């Protein structure tokens, strides 16, 4: 894209950038002099001014999150970098861990300096073996070079601990992550108290996504105003989008907020594969409500516009569905995922996700009943906003949107027991794609 600004992904393609020397020669760790010349509060104000919002899914203003951490408290404070990256369709943080690990370390230093933290935990998704190795090597190199460690931050210590997750989606939820980090079963905690007040080991904790932290060095180097100038008024800066699905070149692309959603997809990925027609776009990971082709073409890519269209930017995982994609099958797949990943604390989620999946499975198997569609529609509102964390919402929101926007496909599946999409038989296996 012509107007594309590269902030996070600027160094992804540079050979050897993942090593300390390479990173330094590409302008790495240059923000530190400025950082240490500022007061911690000034850093927080700077981040607030930049308008940076959390890139993990919720889009909460980062500077504000930091300012919730109590200042004068005799407990230690912690930073948890959320690298669990479990949202289906999301694969952007792995790029940072793989190709720009030192940017994350530099960002961690900025956050820790601003908030007064001496220990940062980086909770990395268990399947990311290669990324864990890469990032651990980077942390080791930073320790060896004295970038982090004892007295590294203007006399203050900074330790970075890499923690490997064990594969549960729910451990990407900030309090589930904290429980898991403490060695417990990953189950979200009721909020309040928020982690900023009571997090890891009962101490004030900042939980930020990898990408959020990795954006900090650029903000320090170029100033908050420069960052705020990019994008729209409320959605500032750029974001990494993991684009997958039926497009020519799926991958991670950095986008500036405010551009047209479909234009961005088309320009970065080359559009729909094999010249097929667009059916729908899931803009922010599997938890976000689906957008029809028309909605996707008429929506700008920023937090507010996508929210106005009835969905969310989420983790920036854009999934493109072409005309051959079966929505009924898509529903069965995502409901299976949420039923499997529900931690089981709250009845609406524990029972609701499983029930939705059972119904979706029945419809897809060609045994659906006409009343099943309304049943799904009535279960979803009972799951939303009723639980400790938002996993139930994450399951119910897309489900409700699939039914609402593609009701005719479900009806066709139930009425005639013949699928509206040519290569999918109810209950059968797609010969081209294989069983999902």
């Amino acid at each position: 894209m012509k107007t594309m600004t590269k902030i996070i992904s600027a160094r992804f393609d540079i050979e050897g950038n993942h090593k300390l020397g390479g990173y330094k020669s590409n302008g790495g760790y240059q923000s530190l002099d400025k950082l240490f010349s500022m007061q911690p509060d000034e850093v927080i104000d700077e981040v607030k001014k930049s308008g940076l919002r959390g890139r993990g899914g919720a889009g909460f203003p980062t500077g504000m999150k930091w300012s919730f951490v109590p200042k004068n408290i005799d407990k230690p404070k912690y930073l948890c970098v959320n690298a669990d990256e479990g949202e289906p369709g999301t694969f952007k943080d792995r790029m940072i861990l793989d190709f720009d690990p030192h940017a994350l370390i530099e960002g961690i230093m900025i956050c820790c300096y601003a908030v007064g933290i001496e220990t940062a935990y980086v909770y990395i998704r268990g399947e990311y073996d290669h990324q864990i190795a890469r990032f651990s090597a980077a942390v080791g190199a930073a320790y060896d070079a004295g970038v982090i460690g004892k007295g590294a931050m203007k006399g203050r210590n900074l330790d970075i601990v890499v923690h490997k997750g064990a594969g549960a989606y729910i451990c990407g939820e900030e309090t589930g992550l904290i429980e898991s980090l403490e060695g417990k079963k990953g189950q979200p905690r009721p909020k309040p108290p928020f982690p900023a007040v009571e997090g890891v080991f009962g101490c004030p904790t900042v939980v930020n996504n990898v990408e959020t932290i990795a954006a900090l060095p650029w903000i320090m180097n170029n100033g908050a105003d420069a960052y705020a100038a990019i994008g729209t008024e409320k959605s500032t800066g750029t974001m990494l989008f993991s684009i997958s699905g039926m497009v020519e070149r799926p991958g991670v692309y950095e986008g500036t907020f405010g551009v047209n959603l479909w234009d961005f997809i088309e320009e970065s990925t080359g559009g729909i594969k094999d010249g097929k027609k667009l059916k729908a776009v899931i803009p922010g990971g599997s938890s976000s409500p689906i957008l029809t082709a028309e909605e996707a073409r008429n929506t700008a890519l920023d937090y507010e516009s996508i929210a106005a269209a009835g969905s969310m930017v989420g983790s920036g995982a854009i999934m493109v569905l072409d005309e051959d994609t079966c929505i009924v099958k898509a529903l069965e797949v995502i409901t299976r995922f949420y039923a499997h990943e529900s931690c089981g604390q709250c009845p609406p989620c524990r029972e609701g996700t499983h029930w939705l999946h059972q119904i979706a499975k029945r419809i897809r198997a060609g045994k659906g009943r006409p009343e099943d569609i309304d049943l799904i529609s009535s279960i979803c509102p009972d799951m939303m906003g009723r639980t400790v964390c938002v996993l139930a919402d994450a399951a119910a929101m897309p489900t409700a949107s699939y039914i609402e926007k593609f009701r005719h496909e479900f009806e066709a599946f139930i009425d005639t027991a013949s699928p509206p999409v040519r290569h999918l038989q109810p209950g059968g296996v797609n010969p081209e794609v294989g069983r999902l």
Partner: protein
Amino acid sequence: MSVKVRIDGIDYEAQEGKLLIDVCADNGIDVPHFCYHPGLGPDGNCRMCQVEFVTARGSRLGVSCKATVTDGMEVLTQSEQAKRARASVEEFLLLNHPLDCPICDKAGECTLQNYYMEHDLEDSRMDFTRHKKGKAMDIGPTLILDQERCVLCDRCVRFLRDVAGDPQLHIASRGHAAFITTFPGQEVTSAYSLNTVDLCPVGALTAKDFRFASANWFMKNTPTVCTTCSRGCSMQLQTRPDENRVVRFRPRHNAEVNGYWSCDGGRLDYHFVNENRITRPFVRTDDNIFECSQQEAIGSMRTALGLTPAGKVEGSGSAKAVLLASATCTLEELYLLKRIGNDLLSAPVFVARHIPDGVEDDLLRRADRHPNVRGAELLGLQVVDFTGDGPAANPVRDALGAQGVLVCVGFNRHVTPGVYAAVDHAARVIALSACETRLTEAADVVIPGLTWAEKDGLVVNFEGHVQRLKAGMHAEGVSEWKILDNFIASLTGSEAHEFVTHIRQAIGSSESAFAGVDLAKVGPHGTRATAQPVG
């Protein structure tokens, strides 16, 4: 600080920072809940206590067990939104709940059942096969687990981990497949395990002891006290009036003594009440036993002590007598014995600790397994220790002398060598006992008494807390206080007392340790004796 909270349109005063669900309960508004328990604190997982919070930014749903009250807070517990939220939680919980209520111990006192009546009353909308999980699993010496009935409220897990300090249950797996279980190869052996049965809002955890014993609507509840150790936990005695037997014994809340809990030992220590009972007074001659009436028995008791009834002139003075009471006796019984010993017979009165010490812990259990040692001390009676294998020094035996008559009261169980040594030494033995023991086998006069389940009386726990035993069932015998009171009346010619409260009033007016304590009006939670023990 006191704040004003508006609940369902009515303003209430509440203490700031208190949990909303507690404030509601204090004001008689019962917010449905499964996982919250005042003894365990909030967990927030069941989502049943959702209410509608009305704020300046509109209304939203939230759980009332996690919300602390603030000034000006406004909540609606019965709004359509709140009721819908709770009804949906109820529906979700019932989706896979087995329909075995007719054979479930919990039926009738099951929270899930009650809330179904309150919220839903609809047929299930789910027509898939229900989950299959473990049924009737033997998970320890006291408990049976039914995983299908479980609503995963985590109460049992939290109780064992946070209160009892025995983390022996946990939730395994996740999502709809999650279930309560023990750790591999281990059992629930906590001394407090049966509290989990009370805590369980459904019939997932049931007590082996109570399993299929009775439907709860047939049971009569009597507030009483546990007499198994010197803690004296406040308890609820549950009996079957039609069968006149104890079916369950479980704690009731008393912040002063036991909180919400009691130990398994105390709960299960009721079986002797139904066993080996003496039903008729009898007199033993050399080789024969003669059953007799109560009055005849009291007459025999008098004769054995060499006494004559009031008004009779003849007689040559009493025999050397020693009174020995068990420390399980009530305060009234001990007081009457003290009167007999001091005022009528000039006989020494001893109170025996005769039940071997148990295990003591930081939560509730006390090593001293007598409910009323402190009461004896407050009355100024001498307490002797007969818990061992027979002490070298036996003050009771020494006091008896060569021709002494021993009056034993309340030794329903545990006639230890110390007690027996005194019995053996006595020329004649008079026993007031509810159960057949070595003592009643040796006694010359036996008068049946009552166990704690059948009598009224006061006991004083180790901290000086006075609580009331209440009769939950009837028995053939007569309460010991009445026997002793009749005995006194027969000697002095005075009128026997009709009610035990008269004895309590007498204790209050004549015993300095209970001055200022209205023993006649001891409520269900008891009262604190003000004075320190004499001596």
